[in-house]
């Protein structure tokens, strides 16, 4: 185990892709424990970890997002937010958060969202007199909403790994997502008041009406998704397929910014961005599988249950553990490795797996904003052209706000469980 940890750390340090690090660690763990014959089954393990209808939703949601983006959806969402909240002090910062909240209901990944929005919002905010690092921090923080507001790649991965209903996970994410959005808006209001942020002219109701009409077709995607899950007509994977069809129709016929010759490029982007996630899933499952031979999950679980029998104390411990691990391990890998460890001990604490799933996902999304391995941090600093140090200074208030929401969600299970309970 120690040797595996050392090799894990060294490989991470020398810039080996995290997915490869996980795979190598899995094989080494099997090897040092004398399970050489198990190593032969690694390819089978890689294959079967992706042979899942639930995970099929990942490329489909990615595809819908790609189509929507090249179809000009980002532009219209920003315009819509601009018309409604742009005239307040610090208007563009609100626009950023509101547009991100809506975009999160179409796209399921923080990385995709941060990449799209940073390129547009950071230069726009700088032009209006905001500090560049504040623009990058606001965009990256608001990008956190991507995996919390449905659809969400993280929820799909948690659902597939834990055997919980992905539909329930999606519904459970709605209130926490809105809470984060509100927390960020309050934060921007406070900072804006202190630093006297710029504001813009108020838009007329006619302009507002026009940009609302333009945004409606795009919001069909989350509309169909939520409707499908609530009525039980579609599974999340099927609604992802429908989302692609809607995205194509809306971008091609309504927005008309979309050209068919862009399709091959979109397919290639979808394949690569899906694979970045699925390779992590496949390799993390090799490591997770190797750890079960070592009885690592059981040891951690036993240790956890000897510390406390109080669910609140347990959840606080889990939060601390996840926030710390989330700083050094990639989020998706963390979910795949930890879910099989924690989910079996939840019943003894009387914790609902859906509540726990939202918690685990919230924790790892906070991790994307923190050094040293936060993917959101790297995207926002490299695309937004700001230094990591100045970004961290600007982003920490957002991280604190997100942790406050995390604590609320931890202590009040109704925030996650209420909407799914309405369906039954």
């Amino acid at each position: 185990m120690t040797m595996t940890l050392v090799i894990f750390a060294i490989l991470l340090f020398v810039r080996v892709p995290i997915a490869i690090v996980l795979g190598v660690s899995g094989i080494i763990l099997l090897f040092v424990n004398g399970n050489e014959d198990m190593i032969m089954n690694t390819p089978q393990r890689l294959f079967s970890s992706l042979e899942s209808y639930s995970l099929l939703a990942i490329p489909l949601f990615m595809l819908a997002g790609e189509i929507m983006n090249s179809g000009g959806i980002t532009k219209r969402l920003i315009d819509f937010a601009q018309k409604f909240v742009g005239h307040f002090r610090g208007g563009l910062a609100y626009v950023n958060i509101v547009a991100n909240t809506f975009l999160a209901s179409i796209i399921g990944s923080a990385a995709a969202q941060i990449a799209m929005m940073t390129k547009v919002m950071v230069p726009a905010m700088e032009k209006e007199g905001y500090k560049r690092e504040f623009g990058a921090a606001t965009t990256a923080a608001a990008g956190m909403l991507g995996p919390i507001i449905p659809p969400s790649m993280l929820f799909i991965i948690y659902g597939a790994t834990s055997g919980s209903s992905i539909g329930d996970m999606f519904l459970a994410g709605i209130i926490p997502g809105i809470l984060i959005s509100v927390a960020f808006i309050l934060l921007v209001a406070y900072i804006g008041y202190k630093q006297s942020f710029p504001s813009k002219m108020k838009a007329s109701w006619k302009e507002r009406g026009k940009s609302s009409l333009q945004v409606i077709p795009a919001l069909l995607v989350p509309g169909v998704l939520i409707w499908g899950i609530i009525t039980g007509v579609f599974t999340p994977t099927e609604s992802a397929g429908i989302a692609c069809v809607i995205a194509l129709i809306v971008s091609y016929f309504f927005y008309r910014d979309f050209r068919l010759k862009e399709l091959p490029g979109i397919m290639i982007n979808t394949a690569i961005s899906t694979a970045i996630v699925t390779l992590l899933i496949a390799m993390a499952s090799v490591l997770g599988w190797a750890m079960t031979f070592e009885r690592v999950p059981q040891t951690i679980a036993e240790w956890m249950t000897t510390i406390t029998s109080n669910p609140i104390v347990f959840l606080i411990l889990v939060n601390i553990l996840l926030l710390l691990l989330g700083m050094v391990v990639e989020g998706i890998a963390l979910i795949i490795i930890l879910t099989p460890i924690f989910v079996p001990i939840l019943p003894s604490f009387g914790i609902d797996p859906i509540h726990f799933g939202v918690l685990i996902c919230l924790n790892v999304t906070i991790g994307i904003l923190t050094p040293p391995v936060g993917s959101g941090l790297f995207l926002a600093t490299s695309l937004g052209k700001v230094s990591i140090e100045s970004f961290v200074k600007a982003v920490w208030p957002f991280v604190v706000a997100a942790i406050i929401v995390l604590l609320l969600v931890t202590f009040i299970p109704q925030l996650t469980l209420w909407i799914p309970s309405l369906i039954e």
Partner: protein
Amino acid sequence: MKFSQTISDSVFSLEKGLVVILIPAMLLAMVFDIFFRYFLNSPLVWAQEIALYTFVWSSFLGASMSIKVKEAVAVTLFIDKMPSKIRNVLILVGLIASTIFAIYIFYLSITWIMDPSILLQKTITTQIPIVYMYLSIPISLLFMSVHFIHWFIEAIRISKDGKVIT
């Protein structure tokens, strides 16, 4: 350098060509499946299977492509603080480790699919020999090894010229 460049680029073109077919096939299969189930009330079980296996294939091919475009997630924060010479050496070490791993999994997967019991298995509804699905692993790992080897050769060349590996 030129040779590995040519091979890696041709493999990448092939991969691009394949996913441009696989992803639309996956979407179409999904749409057919939904349409027949909800509107014609006769589920197309084979469409589900096609959607699933095109997903697995494109995932593994995409994994190799993510290495070619150098987009696979890695931690760069520590290594970027190193003096450029040490940094180059460390990155080369990492590339060697990654290449060996890719080749090793490629080797394991070849042994795996050559197993007679695997060669006999078929998919449940479409009755396609399952080895065509399993082939996604050795082929993608082979492609991934090609990209890693090229990346490594390129990195050696760059550090010999005294430049910084990107």
